C-alpha cells in the first residue's frame, strides 16, 4: 500500500516500535530485578559463606568480637515464630472466611470484611510498638504465669512453656505475627470461596446438607489448592516480617527450648545489628542471613503462587 510511505504513517510505525521497546524494557526490568536482588545478596554474603561454610547454618555462636558467626539461632527463631503464627492464623482465618461467605447475615459481610482488611493496612512498626508497650506487659502479668504453672508441668511439652514470664520472646512474637497475617490469609480464602459455583452449593443444600457440610465437603475440596496457596502467602509474610518481630523478640542470641525466652530471627537480627556491623565479616554475615531469608521466602511464595494458579486455571481466569 502506498499509504505506508506517507510521513505520518511511518512516524506512527516508528513511534509504535519505540513504545513497544520502552514497555518491554520495563517488563524486563521487573523480571531481572528479582534475580538481581538474589545475586547481589549472594555476592554481599560470599565472605561469610566462604569463611564459615556449612557451619554458618549449623552453629549457634554469634560473636562479633571474635568474628564468629552462626545463623542457627536466627533461623530457629524465624521458623518457630512463623510456625506459632500459622497455628494461630490458619484456623482463625478459615473461621473469618467462613463467617464472611456463609455464616454472617448479608448486611454484615462488607463492613466486617473491610474492618478485617484494615488490620492489613496498619504499618508493621505500629504492631511492634503495641506489642512491646501494651501486649508484652499484659501477657507477662496475666497470661504467662498461668502458662508457666499449668502447661509447664506437662510431661513432654513442659520445657516449651517454662521460664521467666518476661513478656518478650518467641511466643509473643508468634502471636503478633499471627495477628498480622490473619487479614492476608482470610482475604485470599474469602475470595476463593466466592468462586465456588452456586449450583454446586445449592445441589448440596437441596440434598439436605447443613451449612458446615457444604463448606467441608463442597467448598473446601473445590478450593483446596488455592486455600493452601493463601496459607503459604501468609507464611511468606510471617517469615520475612521485620519490625513487629524486632520489637517483641528480645534480641538474644541464645538457643533455648522455652518459647517464653527472648530469642532472635533472621529479619530482627539484620534490623538490630546492621548499623552496628563494624567489620566486613560481620556485615557479610548479616547480608548472608538476608540471602537465606530471600531463598526461603522465595520458595514459600513460589509454592503459594503455583497453588493459587491451579484454581485460576480451572476457573479459566
Amino acid at each position: 500500500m502506498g499509504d505506508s510511505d506517507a510521513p505520518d504513517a511511518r512516524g506512527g510505525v516508528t513511534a509504535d516500535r519505540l513504545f513497544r521497546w520502552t514497555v518491554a524494557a520495563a517488563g524486563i526490568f521487573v523480571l531481572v530485578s528479582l534475580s538481581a536482588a538474589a545475586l547481589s545478596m549472594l555476592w554481599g554474603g560470599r565472605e561469610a559463606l566462604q569463611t564459615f561454610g556449612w557451619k554458618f547454618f549449623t552453629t549457634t555462636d554469634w560473636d562479633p568480637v571474635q568474628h564468629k558467626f552462626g545463623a542457627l539461632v536466627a533461623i530457629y527463631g524465624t521458623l518457630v515464630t512463623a510456625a506459632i503464627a500459622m497455628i494461630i492464623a490458619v484456623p482463625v482465618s478459615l473461621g473469618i472466611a467462613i463467617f464472611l461467605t456463609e455464616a454472617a447475615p448479608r448486611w454484615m459481610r462488607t463492613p466486617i470484611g473491610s474492618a478485617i482488611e484494615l488490620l492489613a493496612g496498619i504499618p508493621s512498626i505500629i504492631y511492634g510498638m503495641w506489642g512491646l508497650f501494651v501486649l508484652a506487659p499484659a501477657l507477662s502479668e496475666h497470661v504467662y504465669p498461668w502458662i508457666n504453672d499449668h502447661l509447664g508441668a506437662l510431661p513432654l511439652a513442659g520445657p516449651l512453656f517454662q521460664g521467666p514470664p518476661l513478656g518478650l520472646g518467641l511466643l509473643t512474637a508468634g502471636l503478633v505475627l499471627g495477628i498480622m497475617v490473619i487479614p492476608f490469609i482470610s482475604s485470599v480464602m474469602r475470595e476463593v470461596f466466592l468462586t465456588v459455583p452456586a449450583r454446586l452449593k445449592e445441589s448440596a443444600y437441596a440434598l439436605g446438607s447443613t451449612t458446615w457440610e457444604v463448606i467441608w465437603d463442597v467448598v473446601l475440596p473445590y478450593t483446596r489448592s488455592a486455600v493452601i496457596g493463601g496459607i503459604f502467602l501468609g507464611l511468606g509474610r510471617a517469615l520475612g516480617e521485620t519490625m513487629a518481630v524486632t520489637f517483641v523478640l528480645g534480641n538474644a542470641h541464645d538457643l533455648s527450648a522455652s518459647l517464653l525466652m527472648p530469642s532472635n530471627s533472621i529479619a530482627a537480627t539484620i534490623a538490630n545489628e546492621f548499623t552496628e556491623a563494624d567489620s566486613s565479616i560481620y556485615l557479610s554475615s548479616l547480608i548472608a542471613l538476608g540471602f537465606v531469608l530471600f531463598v526461603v521466602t522465595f520458595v514459600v511464595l513460589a509454592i503459594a503462587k503455583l497453588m493459587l494458579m491451579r484454581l485460576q486455571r480451572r476457573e479459566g481466569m
Partner: protein
Amino acid sequence: MTAVDRLYAKRRFKNMLALTLAWAATVFGLFWLVWILWTTFSMGISHLNLALFTKMTPAPGDSGGLLNAFFGSATMSLLAIAMGTPIGIAAGTFLAEYANHSKIGTVTRFVNDILLSAPSIVLGLFVYTLVVKTMGHFSALAGAIALGFIVLPVVVRTTDEMLRLVPSQMREAALSLGVPQWKVTTQILYRASMSGILTGVLLALARISGETAPLLFTALNNQYWTTNILQPMANVPVVIFQYAMSPYDAWQSLAWAGAFIVTMFVLLLSLLARLVLLRNKVGNE
C-alpha cells in the same frame, strides 16, 4: 430416639458448633484490631502538639518535634512514587497489551507477584549493596530507590489488571480507525483505566508510608534538617523505631505521636483509594 434422629441431631450440633466457631474467629480478629487502634489513638492523641510540626527531632532526652522526619518521609515517598510509577505502568502495559498470553508474560507476572510479597527487608539489603555500597554512604536517594522497589510491583499489578479489564472492542474500534497502537494505549486505554491505576498508586503510597526495615539500611536517619537527597535523611518510621526503643520519656512520646500520625495517614489513604475505585464503579454502571 431412633438412630436417624440421633444422626440428625449430631449433624445439627456439628453445624452449630462450626458456625459458632466462625463467629468466634471473627470476634477474635476484630478484638485485636480494636485494641491496636485504640492504643495508637489514645497514646497518640495524648502526645499530639503543635511542636511536632514546627521543631526538629531532639537530642536524647530533650523535647522537640518531627518536622525534619516528616519532610524526609514525604521527600522519599514522592521520589519513590516518581520512580516506581512510570516503570510500573510501562511494565504493566507490557504484560497486558504485548505479552498477555506469552511465556515471558507469565514468567514476569510470576516474578512480579513474588516481588509484591517479598519481605521489604530483603529489598532494603538489595538496594544497600546496589546503591549505598557503590556511593560509599547512606542517602535519601537510596531510601527512595528501596521504597520504589516496593511501589513497583503494586503499580505493575494494578496496571496489568486494569488494562485487561478494558473491553477489547475499544482497542479494535480505535485500531480500525487507523490509530497507531501506542496512541490507542496512551490516549484511550490509560484514560479508561485511570482510576484503577490511581488506586494502585495510592495503595502503594499507603504501603511505603509506614515502611521501616528497608530505610534502616538505605536512608538511615539524620537528627538535623537536610534537603540534600545524597545525604542521610530523617524519616518518620526510623525515628519511631529509634525513639520507641530508647529509655527517654520525651522520645517515647514523640514515637507515639509519630505512630498515630502515620497510622491515620495510611488508613485515610486506603479509604481514599477505595473511594476512587468505588466512584469509578458507579460511574461505569
